[in-house]
């Protein structure tokens, strides 16, 4: 399959890339790893008059910790995230997530920024970033803008990024001591989108009860779903099979999956319930250092 015609641009500075995107407006798309965009263009589900490849711009691929914040460059590859010792140590939920995205060959090119900016509710990073309370940095004609993750996913394939803006960094507050997180995905086979998946990031207090819980679901609605009621329910409760089960029930209530070849609505909602419980259990085990 061959995409429709487009012009290709390979700027070598961020300023040049932003200028090109601003000039071409809605007709331009950012090419990052290309592992979602190129299939979409080949299948002609989408079109672009101009592709602005940000792969020749130095300085957009990094994973570092600065002032209690884990900073990830927008063009950082999934394979880099998967292999990062810093990620494994500070945010194992992110390691869980990276390693179940597509397959290893795709992860060699696919980028974290692309996974978020594509706005696909089937992508895996959005739920994890919601659970982690991440922020997204967008660089545009008027400089940098920091977008809280809760305001980032606007609709199906739609994000808060404006034409002319590039997702340049993801900022994750480093979880405090006695924190843990886990991402649990049900997929039919390697490389598939989630039938359902749950991200849970928790912090426990001195008495072992939840002081904070971030819970979100993948492929459970037109946008990634934050499970606010389940989060609120857990605060002050002790981790137990009963509290995990009730949080799972509340999470399932929050989602609105659609039926497709991966399953019926009821089945997906049931999977959201089960996976939320499992993600919480794994997150608590990590928080307790087990």
């Amino acid at each position, binding site marked *: *399959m*061959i*995409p*429709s*015609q*487009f*012009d*290709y641009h*390979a700027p070598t500075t961020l300023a040049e890339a932003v200028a090109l995107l601003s000039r071409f407006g809605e007709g331009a798309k950012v*090419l990052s790893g*290309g*592992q979602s965009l*190129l*299939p979409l*263009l*080949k*299948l002609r589900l989408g079109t672009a008059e101009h*592709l602005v*490849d940000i*792969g020749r711009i130095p300085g957009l691929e990094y994973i570092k910790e600065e002032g209690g914040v884990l900073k990830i460059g927008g063009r950082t590859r999934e*394979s880099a995230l998967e292999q990062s010792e810093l990620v494994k140590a500070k945010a194992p939920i992110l390691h869980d997530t990276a390693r179940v995205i*597509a*397959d*290893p*060959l*795709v992860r*060699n*090119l696919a980028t974290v920024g692309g996974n978020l900016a594509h706005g696909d509710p089937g992508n895996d990073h959005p739920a994890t970033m919601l659970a982690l309370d991440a922020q997204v940095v967008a660089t545009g004609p008027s400089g940098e803008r920091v977008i809280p993750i809760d305001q980032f996913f606007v609709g199906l394939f739609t994000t808060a990024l404006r034409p002319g803006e590039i997702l340049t960094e993801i900022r994750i507050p480093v979880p405090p001591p006695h924190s843990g997180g886990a991402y649990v995905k049900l997929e039919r086979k*390697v*490389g598939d989108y989630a039938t359902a998946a749950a991200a849970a990031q928790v912090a426990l207090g001195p008495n072992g009860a939840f002081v904070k819980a971030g819970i979100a679901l993948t492929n459970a609605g037109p946008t990634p779903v934050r499970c606010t009621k389940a989060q609120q329910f857990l605060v002050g409760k002790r981790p137990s099979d009963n509290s995990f089960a009730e949080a799972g029930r509340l999470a399932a209530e929050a989602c609105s999956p659609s039926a497709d070849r991966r399953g019926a609505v009821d089945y997906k909602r049931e999977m959201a319930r089960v996976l939320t419980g499992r993600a919480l259990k794994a997150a608590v085990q990590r928080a307790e250092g087990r």
Partner: protein
Amino acid sequence: MATHRIELSVNGAKQSAEVPSRLLLVHLLRENLRLTGTHIGCDTTHCGACTVLLDGTPVKSCTVLAVQADGREVTTVEGLEKDGKLHPIQEGFWEKHGLQCGYCTPGMMLSGCALLARNKSPSEAEIREAISGNLCRCTGYVNIVKAIEYAAEKMRER
């Protein structure tokens, strides 16, 4: 629409081409350079038959633009053999009957090569993980895993 002058190294040889923006790397290799060992399977980023090494990293060449390979090194299955001698991974697929129809084989071998370049003694689980982006409909993967294990052993002996 614009075309682009690109220069790249393919299997160690410098190549240059004038390519349209939308030309895929797999088409550059197969049609412009006549390197038809790189196969087109699903053409939708699932099967891995089109796997090549880009600067040593295995990628699906149906999901890379030719122009993105400008200035980079590409290795295809044709680049594995050296001076008429098979690469240990090719020997392994021969010796362990790691193929039946052969369609997935070039991709499997390149994914295997990339694994062995970073891990000299992979476990069976690590091999299976490394080829999990390459689909085989004939073998059931058992002999492919054995072929890569064979190559690992051969390469350690050197």
